[in-house]
């Protein structure tokens, strides 16, 4: 199988492509996780196009249907990690901690040539492995993360084990800021610091949004950077839409500690019309045909594409 060539496209092009695909999908389906694409496109594009050392995919470009859950009677069961390439000591691993970003993660896989565009058409279809809330059998996923706050702990355990086994590959977690409301996130950071797990890296989409609305109105979390530092991480806070800041941040020295990059982002980035739906951005379903048409026109123009012909879609 051909190696995936990184930088075949620029990271900026990939980020734009992610937004376009998620936008087109949302138009066809009368809604979707649009704001997550706006806030996280640069982070996922940067991870896959520049940062992660990954091998070529080991699973088919067009995802297989759901193949059953893990059980002793299901010997052919496998996760979706093969879209990130083989498991190898010198290669990196990635966890998408907020499984609600699955749509954006799938769009990223397509943009970087790891999944066929047909994969996105299977999103949330009965019997498909391309699930709405990323499951561990979904493309690019290796564990279930739909119950928020468990991702960083899993990554810390894996990273510790890889260090013990003298593996050189890094373990990365893409996180979301809502997760810091869960106590487990803090247990994970203190643990990673205590055990000196410095082959562990996270980039957190700090978009200040959660299901109920703005985090400040649901459960304010205060100064995440200072709190994380107090729990033992090395933390760099950046503009999450500026790739140069990501490139600089990852070079930060963090011997004996995990490195967490706080990517401060806008949930409307690239789709300014979405601002009208603030503060309910978690899952944007269009309220009327009028709004759908207007969003279609405005967002298409902002993304430099033609409006989506969604007649005949539901």
């Amino acid at each position: 199988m051909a190696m995936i060539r990184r930088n075949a496209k620029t990271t900026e092009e990939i980020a734009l492509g992610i937004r376009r695909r998620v936008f087109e999908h949302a138009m066809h389906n009368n809604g979707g996780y649009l704001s997550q694409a706006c806030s996280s496109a640069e982070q996922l594009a940067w991870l896959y196009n520049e940062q992660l050392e990954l091998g070529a995919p080991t699973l088919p470009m067009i995802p297989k249907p759901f193949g059953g859950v893990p059980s002793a009677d299901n010997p052919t069961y496998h996760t979706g990690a093969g879209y990130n390439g083989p498991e190898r000591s010198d290669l990196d691993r990635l966890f998408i901690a907020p499984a609600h970003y699955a749509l954006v993660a799938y769009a990223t896989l397509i943009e970087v040539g790891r999944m066929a565009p047909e994969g996105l058409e299977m999103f949330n279809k009965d019997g498909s492995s391309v699930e709405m809330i990323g499951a561990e059998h979904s493309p690019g996923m290796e564990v279930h993360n739909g119950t928020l706050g468990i991702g960083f702990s899993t990554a810390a355990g894996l990273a510790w084990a890889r260090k013990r086994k003298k593996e050189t590959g890094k373990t990365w977690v893409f996180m979301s800021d809502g997760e810091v409301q869960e106590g487990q996130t803090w247990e994970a950071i203190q643990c990673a610091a205590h055990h000196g797990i410095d082959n562990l890296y996270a980039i957190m989409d700090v978009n200040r949004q959660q299901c109920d609305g703005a985090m400040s109105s649901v459960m304010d979390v205060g100064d995440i950077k200072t709190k994380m530092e107090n729990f033992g991480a090395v933390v760099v806070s950046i503009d999450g839409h500026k790739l140069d800041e990501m490139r600089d941040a990852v070079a930060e020295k963090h011997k004996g500690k995990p490195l967490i990059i706080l990517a401060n982002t806008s949930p409307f980035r690239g789709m300014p019309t979405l601002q009208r739906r603030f503060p309910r951005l978690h899952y944007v379903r269009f309220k009327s045909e009028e709004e759908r048409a207007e969003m279609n026109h405005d967002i298409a123009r902002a993304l430099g594409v033609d409006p989506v012909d969604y007649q005949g879609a539901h």
Partner: protein
Amino acid sequence: MQKTGIQMVSRPYERAFEAYAMAHPEVLCLSADLTSSCEIDKFRDKHPDKFLSLGMAEQNMLSFAGGLGMAGFRPFLHTFGVFLYRRPYDQLMASIAYPRRKVRLMGFLPGVTTPGGMTHQAIEDISVMRSIPNMTILETGDATEVESICEAADSIDGPVYCRVLRGSVPRLFDTPIEVGKMRELALGEDVLIVTAGITTEEALRARGALEQKGVSVRHLHLNTIKPFDAKAMLDHIQSVKGGVVTLENHVTEGGIGSLLAEIMADNGVGKRLVRLGLKDTYAHGGSRGYLMKYYGLDATALVAGVEDLLGTQLGITEDDLTTARVDAVHSTVKAEGL
């Protein structure tokens, strides 16, 4: 195909909770970042002094609710059922169940009623709750039961876990929940079918076809799973010539199938029991109709269970079953997001 003509009710919980909470000063509304998903967003906006946003921090929410209970409040906790017991199990035991706090755990999207996959599907909640001393378990099966769940739950002198249906809910019954009293929906003499929650509607779909094939069905609907009136159930078991079939939106271990097995074994009943439900497996993400078919929780599976019990093929086809309702995953009555 027959048409059911069942009335659908939109968001029955939303109205019922507001009416109940406003009539009872000690009732508080707690939410864990799933406010509109649990149909309490209007309540939050209209009655902010009775609403507490606890964020995605369930361990804290459960012990916090225990503290509210100590001061005489009766908090209603709203989130998906799965988030009320998996992560905060320790807090559920120590802060709520042991000291018998009057905490009302309103668990939405029970079993496979959510497309969110394993992490969102409460498939073993009844099993967990049944084994917790002091816990009461209620389950809603139609709009009338959803409308009466707040009053029923709040009548419990201790903690209570409720499986609550949301969105568009069929109206099957015209009387409210009476805690501890099962609904006798048919009093036939061949086979006893016991259902709860969404599986009752499936049994109603299958019953007509079974009767047409000459099977006399006794059908009971449970809205109170714990505590349980074993004596009343025993009378029903002894009233049928054949055995018992249970169908539940839950794994077949620890739920109503196990409940029936315990009653039958405790009383030395020498009849067969066919337990239908999720068979020692997790589910995955998909629409409710698809999941019920895939995992054998629907009317077709129930017919097969009755055939197994009777040891005969009845020749019932899909067309013989009363029409199923099909809800779009993104239907307008469904609260946004997961």
